[in-house]
Each structure stands twice: as structure tokens, then as C-alpha cells.
């Protein structure tokens, strides 16, 4: 049966005595998977390992059943947009895409067609015939993305793909990722922009110091650590003081704080299910609750819980 996952089994990579990643075991399904972590956490190393740009010191990697040491097979269905902001000299945007499509051995007419389509997809039609050296940072980011998607890959690996993009292009790019994911492809994204990761990801891989500290769907990751750290809810209601006092009567509630300017009540609980049940009772008893939002059910909070004292980058 054809494998449909990117699998890393106990993968380690050392640069001399410096740790790149250590004992990483992952099974990445189709959809958007985000690698999240501070600088030096091993995100780029992991992507370079998956694409065979570097080899693991230990462990095994398989991308949909293909070993990354076989580029002639791997890059038929894998596209990788790296963070390296350099290009072959003297090429225009379209020459850049076309030339490397030709290197893959495709016929010239097909390469021309794919080049045009990729450039359209990243919105660089007007700049296509300009030298890449004259592009802005955002345009260079987009032309790299165009090169990664030009051959219509089933697996798209993107290292900080939203860096340097303006808001409009950013949303178009995210839409592109979502479309790819909806088509059943793998989109692996690394990012520091946690709220965007939160918005686009089907699942996250949290990395710190070369280790994977958590992986899975964001809510799943949150549940796993719920016992260790309280969960926060933001509740908006017309009687916040009453809500705060009633909430604090519950054993599992460790903090109920009134937020300024009527923004609501922030409740920290060790048992989210029990708190939700209690909240239902309060509502039935006549407390006018306008909204309940899990205040920390996002990547950033999860990441903050897990990495704790380490500095996170936003």
C-alpha cells in the first residue's frame, strides 16, 4: 500500500558536537502541519532533513515511502521553499522558474506552461520578466514559493513562507496553502508568526532545543497538558462580579479575574469539562452569559506552557 505520510523515526542530526535535532519521531499526515519554535529550535534542520539537503546522523526518514537520499524520485512530488534568500545570478523571475523546471527534464512547452501558472499563482505576472536581483524581499519570497509549487507537488515544505509578505499577499498565500491541504496534499510550514500558524494549521509540531516537545492537533496538544497547567476561559456577561464569585466557589477554579473596562472575566480552571458544566448551571440559574472563549487554546499559549521559561518569538 502506498504510504501517505512523512515519517521520521528517531531522527537525530548533529553538526559536530552541536545538536541540530535529536530523536525526532513524527508521522505527518496530509493537511497543513506547522513547525513552531524559536530560532535554533531545529525547524529548518528538520525541513532540510525531510528534503535530503542534509542527512540524518541517526534514524530513518521516509517521504510518502521515498527516501530523501533519492532526489530524482523525491522532487517529482516534493517542493521546498527554503529560507535562503539567494538566487542564481542574472536570471529574471520567469527564467528562474523555467530553468529549474528544465533541469527536472520536462519538455520546454510544458515548462513554459508550468512557469506561467506558478507565476500567476503567486501574483508576480508583472514582475516576471524583471531580474530577480531587482525584486523586493516579498517578491523574492513569492518567487521562491513559485519555484516550489511550479511542478504541482503533492508535498510542499515551506520555511517561513509568510516572511516579508504584505497582508494581501499573505492572505492569498494562506488561501493557497489551504487549497493545497483541501486537495489532500501535505503542506509543512515553519513559522514564528504564531497567530497565523494557529489560523492555518491542521496540526502543529512544537520544537524546542532540537526536540519535538509536542505534536498533534492544537486542541489535542492542549488536552495532553491540561493536567499540568490550568486552562483559561474568557467569559463575557452582564454581571461579571457575580460570575467571578460563583466561579471561584468551584474547587477546580484556581483564579477568577475581572478584566478592566467590562472586558469580562478571565477564569483559570484545572478541569475544563467541569467548569463548562458549572457554567451551564449558572446560565440556567439566570446569569446572563454573552460569550465563552477558550482564552489559551492557541499555539502561542500551548507553546508558552510547554517551553515555559524560554523566550518565544512572535
Amino acid at each position: 500500500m502506498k504510504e501517505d505520510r512523512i515519517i521520521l523515526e528517531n531522527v537525530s542530526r548533529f553538526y559536530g558536537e552541536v545538536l541540530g535535532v535529536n530523536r525526532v519521531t513524527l508521522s505527518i499526515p496530509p493537511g497543513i502541519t506547522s513547525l513552531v519554535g524559536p530560532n535554533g529550535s531545529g525547524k529548518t534542520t528538520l525541513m532540510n532533513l525531510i528534503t535530503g539537503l542534509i542527512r540524518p546522523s541517526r534514524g530513518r526518514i521516509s517521504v510518502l515511502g521515498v527516501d530523501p537520499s533519492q532526489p530524482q524520485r523525491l522532487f517529482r512530488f516534493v517542493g521546498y521553499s527554503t529560507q535562503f534568500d539567494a538566487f542564481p545570478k542574472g536570471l529574471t523571475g520567469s527564467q528562474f522558474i523555467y530553468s529549474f523546471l528544465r533541469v527536472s527534464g520536462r519538455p520546454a512547452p510544458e515548462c513554459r506552461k508550468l512557469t506561467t501558472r506558478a507565476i500567476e499563482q503567486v501574483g508576480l505576472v508583472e514582475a516576471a520578466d524583471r531580474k530577480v536581483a531587482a525584486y523586493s524581499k516579498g517578491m523574492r519570497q513569492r518567487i521562491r514559493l513559485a519555484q516550489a509549487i511550479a511542478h504541482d507537488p503533492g508535498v510542499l515544505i515551506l520555511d517561513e513562507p509568510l516572511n516579508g509578505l504584505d497582508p494581501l499577499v499573505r492572505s492569498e498565500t494562506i488561501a493557497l496553502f489551504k487549497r493545497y491541504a483541501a486537495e489532500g496534499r501535505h503542506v509543512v510550514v515553519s513559522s514564528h508568526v504564531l497567530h497565523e500558524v494557529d489560523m492555518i494549521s491542521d496540526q502543529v509540531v512544537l520544537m524546542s532545543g532540537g526536540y519535538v516537545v509536542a505534536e498533534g492537533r492544537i486542541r489535542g496538544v492542549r488536552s495532553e497538558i491540561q493536567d499540568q497547567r490550568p486552562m483559561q476561559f474568557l467569559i463575557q456577561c452582564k454581571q461579571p462580579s457575580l460570575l467571578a464569585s460563583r466561579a471561584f466557589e468551584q474547587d477546580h477554579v484556581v483564579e477568577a479575574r475581572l478584566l478592566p473596562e467590562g472586558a469580562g472575566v478571565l477564569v483559570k480552571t484545572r478541569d475544563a469539562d467541569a467548569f463548562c458544566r458549572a457554567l451551564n448551571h449558572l446560565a440556567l440559574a439566570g446569569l446572563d452569559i454573552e460569550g465563552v472563549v477558550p482564552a489559551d487554546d492557541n499555539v502561542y499559549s500551548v507553546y508558552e506552557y510547554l517551553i515555559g521559561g524560554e523566550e518565544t518569538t512572535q
Partner: protein
Amino acid sequence: MIRLWCIQVLAIIRLEMKKTFFARRGLWVYLLAFAPLALFVTHSIAAGHHRDQLERIARDHPISSEAFSDIQAGMTRDEVTQKLGRPYSQWNRHTRNEHNEPREWSHWRYTDGKIELHLFFEDDKLTGIRRSELDTLPEVARIFAGVFQSYYLRLAVFFGCVGVFVNLFRGERLDKSLHFYLLTPTRREVLLAGKYLAGLLATVVIFTSSTALQWLALLWQFDHTAVADFLTSPTRSGAAGTGWGQFSSYLAVTALACVGYGSVFLAVGLLFRNPIIPVAVVLLWEGVNPFLPAALKKISMIYYLQSLCPVAAAPGQDVPGLVHLLISPVQPATKAVAVLSIVILTCVVLVVGARLSRRMEINYSTE
């Protein structure tokens, strides 16, 4: 599969062409390649001008070359003038000896249009005779052989190949753009072959065209009939075959040098982060080749390349005697052995390079 590889190799060559031919960092390769051309063009212009000048003088002051042989040391100025007439150029210098007596030194020049006779007088007595002949075609062929083997092969082609081939991988590592190749569905061996052929195309075009132009520049000073005769007649060209034969041999040797050195420096660029030391080692090994024992001589590229050169460039008279003693004579390899040795060495180096390229990684931060 082979068709796919060929398409990929051609695509890589196309991508590399701009970089190998027009890279700003490769300008010095052109300087190395075309420096001897500038030298030969200058020489040809000067020699042609001198030849015209002597022919004009010979027309104005006709002298038979037989008369030159009658001139002997000890003759007086009048005796010389009786035999050859007045010189076309005369230079005098007056000094005094230790007894404060006046002395006159003279330098007289005669020509028959081909030979220039220099006569040196002390007072009234002929004390020195020097004959300088204009360049002949076999003579310029020897000059070319000397420059070709001592400078062109050993330095220009050598360093030109360093500049082009080392940069095929290393240059892109420094530019941080090598990964784009590694992200295509291309076998690393195919990538290596494509880059090697791109480098080879560039160096062969640059260096063989320079060789051809140097050859033309040297022949340019002679009249067309003499050149045609030299190119087609073995007797006029000396023992080295016809001029065309020599010309095509030099082109082939240049191309083979690019083939051999190219493979070595491609591997150096692939293997070493700092190529200076391995290049210096190869340069030293090729440089000391004349002084090596016969067996060691044969483990070098220059030995086989020189074996293929049509005219042997023997060390000149101005080479010090001690150096002469240190040079170990060795029979040149036969043409077949020389070509085969270079081709085998190239294949071995490329196969090793291809194996190494499979393990190539992108780690720009450590470059």
C-alpha cells in the same frame, strides 16, 4: 532514462553558461588566456615593422649576403667600408683610457633585408661581429612551443581551470544558490556531469580560441606564400610535421588540459571548503615535474600533455647549469598512452566526484 539524463545535462549546461562565460569573478580567466595573445600580437607587429624597415634599407643600400662572410675581426673601418660600403646606421662613443688618451667605440649596422650585421669597432679595429636574423617560421614555432609549455599549459590553462571548475560547486555554495539544483529531481551524478561539461565547454572555447589566435598572431608577420608553405609542407616546418599538424596538436593538447585539470579542480571544489591548499599542492607537483625521477614524472598531467606537444620545448641556453643538472630526462609518452592516461585519470576523478556528490549537503552557515 539516458534521454532524461541528457535533457537534464543540457538544461544544466544552459544554466551554467552565463556564469562560466560572463561571470565578473571569471574575468581574470580571460586575462590569463589572452595574455600570450597580446604578447604575440605585439611581437608580430614589431617583427613585421622591423622586417619592412630592413627590406627598405636593403633596397636603398643593396648588399649581398655573401659579402657579409668576407668580414672578419681585426679589419679596419676602411677595409669594411670597401667591402660593404657605408653602414645604414652608425653609432659612435668617445671615451678616454687610463692614460687619458682618447678612444672611439663604434657600432655599425648593415642589412641585406634578411640578416642584420652588427659590427663593433674599438678605435679603428673591428673587434666584434654579431649576426641577427629575422624570425623564420620554424623559429617562431619554437618560440610558440616554449611559451605554450612553460606558461600557457602550466599557468594559464591550469589557473583558468581552477577559476572555472572550482567555482562550479564552491561558487554557488558561496552565493548560497546551490540548493536550487539539489531541489530538482536530478541525480547528483547527472548534476556533476552537467556542471563538468559546462565548465569544459567554457574552458575549451576560451583556451583553444586563444591558442588558435596566438598561432595566427605569430604567423601574421610572414607573407602568405611562406605561411601556406609552412602550414602544408613538413620540410619547411621542421621535424614536427606540417604547420597545420602542429596547430591542430596544440588545440588538442589545450582541450585535453581542460579535460584533465577540469576534472581535478571540479573534485577539489566539491571536496574542500578552502581550495587554495589542494590547488597549491597540485601546482607544486606539476611545477617540480621536470626535476622528478622518471617514474614519478608519469604521475602528473603535465608529463602527458607535454608528450603530446609537437615541438619539444627544451630548456634554453640561459637556464643555469645547476638547473640543467637537476632536470631528469625522460622519454615522452606515446600519443596513445598520453591521451589514454589523461582520459583514464579524468574518468577516475569524475567517478570519485560523483560518489562524493551523493553525500553532498547544504550547510551554508558553515561555509
